[in-house]
């Protein structure tokens, strides 16, 4: 799997140094919404220049090259274990070559592994594919925005959030209000709803790999995504949290069936630098 390993190294390079076109386009539209001479306008202009320079010079556009998160659709018969080893090799090479910042820290010894591999690092999710193609989605998830995420158990009395669409809506607004500028807005917001705690956190993160321009297949959720995007932008938090019209550029919601006793809502925030990319093999 040497060629595949090099392909994954290239994927790392692309994802760390260039922003997906849909995100960049949304950032350009956001700039047009901000008042002349405002800190929002100034921040977004510098961000857009940063995106351009990073791409042109092949340097990671943020020094926090994040936790690498892989979502993999693997064809029948291909070994998950072999693929995992290929990804670990590619991670070590990419860290040295691009370079990426070494971010994997042992919680007992406090030592940084130096190569972005370690226990559960990178994060790799496998799912068997119905086709013969191997699809590798990679997201470099920045930690500033990761820290600003929240999980809720509905009903939540403090928010008067019940077990319904309105309840989900209140959780998302609450997360953004609490996050303010700490996670580098404009945000892309992933929401996962369902009955198992581990599932909803994965689901919310998986929403962040959806294209900003796609439409949710579930009508009720599509409506909620649209409504939330407009409401969040009315909060006035703005780019970098210094006030302005663009607090978010996308809201994406996924749902699983839940247990009668449980109703979890997990909200994952991504900074504007929602670095993601796909390799099909």
């Amino acid at each position, binding site marked *: 799997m040497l060629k595949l390993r090099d392909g994954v190294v290239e994927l790392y390079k692309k994802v760390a140094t260039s922003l997906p076109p849909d995100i960049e386009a949304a950032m350009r539209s956001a700039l047009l919404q901000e008042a002349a001479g405002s800190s929002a306008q*100034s921040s977004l202009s510098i961000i857009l220049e940063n995106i351009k320079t990073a791409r042109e010079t092949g340097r990671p556009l943020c020094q*926090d090259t994040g936790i690498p998160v892989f979502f993999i659709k693997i064809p029948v018969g291909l070994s998950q274990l072999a693929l995992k080893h290929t990804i670990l090799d590619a991670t070590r090479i990419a860290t040295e070559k691009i370079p990426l910042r*070494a971010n994997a820290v042992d919680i007992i010894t406090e030592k940084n592994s130096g190569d972005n591999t370690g226990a559960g690092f990178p994060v790799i999710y496998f799912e068997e594919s119905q086709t013969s193609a191997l699809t590798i989605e990679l997201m470099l998830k*920045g930690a500033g925005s990761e820290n600003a995420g929240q999980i809720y158990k509905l009903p939540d009395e403090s928010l008067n959030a019940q077990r319904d669409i*309105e309840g989900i809506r209140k959780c998302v607004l609450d997360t953004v209000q609490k996050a303010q500028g700490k996670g580098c807005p404009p945000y892309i917001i992933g929401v996962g709803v369902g009955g198992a705690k581990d599932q909803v956190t994965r689901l919310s993160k998986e929403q962040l790999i959806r294209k900003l321009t796609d439409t949710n297949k579930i009508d009720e959720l599509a409506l909620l995504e649209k409504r939330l995007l407009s*409401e969040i932008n009315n909060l006035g938090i703005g780019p970098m949290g210094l*006030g302005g019209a663009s607090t978010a550029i996308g809201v994406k919601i996924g749902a699983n069936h839940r247990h009668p006793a449980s109703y979890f809502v997990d909200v994952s925030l991504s900074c504007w630098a929602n670095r993601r990319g796909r390799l099909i093999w």
Partner: protein
Amino acid sequence: MVKTIDLRTPLSSENVLSLRAGDFVSISGSLITGRDKIHKYLAEHRPGKKDIPFELSGAILYHCGPLIRKTEAGYKIISAGPTTSMRVEMYEASVIKEYNLKGIIGKGGMGEKTLSALKENACVYFQAIGGAAVYLAERIKKVLGVWKLDEFGPAEAMWHLETEGFPAIVTMDAHGNNIHKDIENMSFKKFSELIGENN
């Protein structure tokens, strides 16, 4: 065009007191980085002046864990944007006081304890643009030195950097003004309206 104030380190109390929340600044001189581990260490161990290889009095402390590459010609900064400041809120007031810092650069703002320390010690908080790490790295001209590299690793070490024209915005000044708090209060009003309308 927005008016920008040029600042050169070290900063004096007069420099700091002349700044107001909302001012756009361009910083030249030296920046000292410090994030989670450095703050914990400074607050717990209180190393003296002779233990730290750079002058912290009058300095600007930058909340940043840079991406740095070691080359034959020395260390090269690749990307160096700000990290979230609020994580060091429990340490910052005592660090500002103990080491006579005159400026902090970070993102997201800080809490009440730090705001009071800014006032008491004539210090100021600057917001840098999160994620604009290549743009900011291009304004860092040289790595002058490093402390605690082996112990804390490159992302958490204290780097002494030389900068020219580093852009930032004063968001918490030495007179008690705090843009982060103002925005939070304003957005909380909107949030309460949105949450309340279906109650």
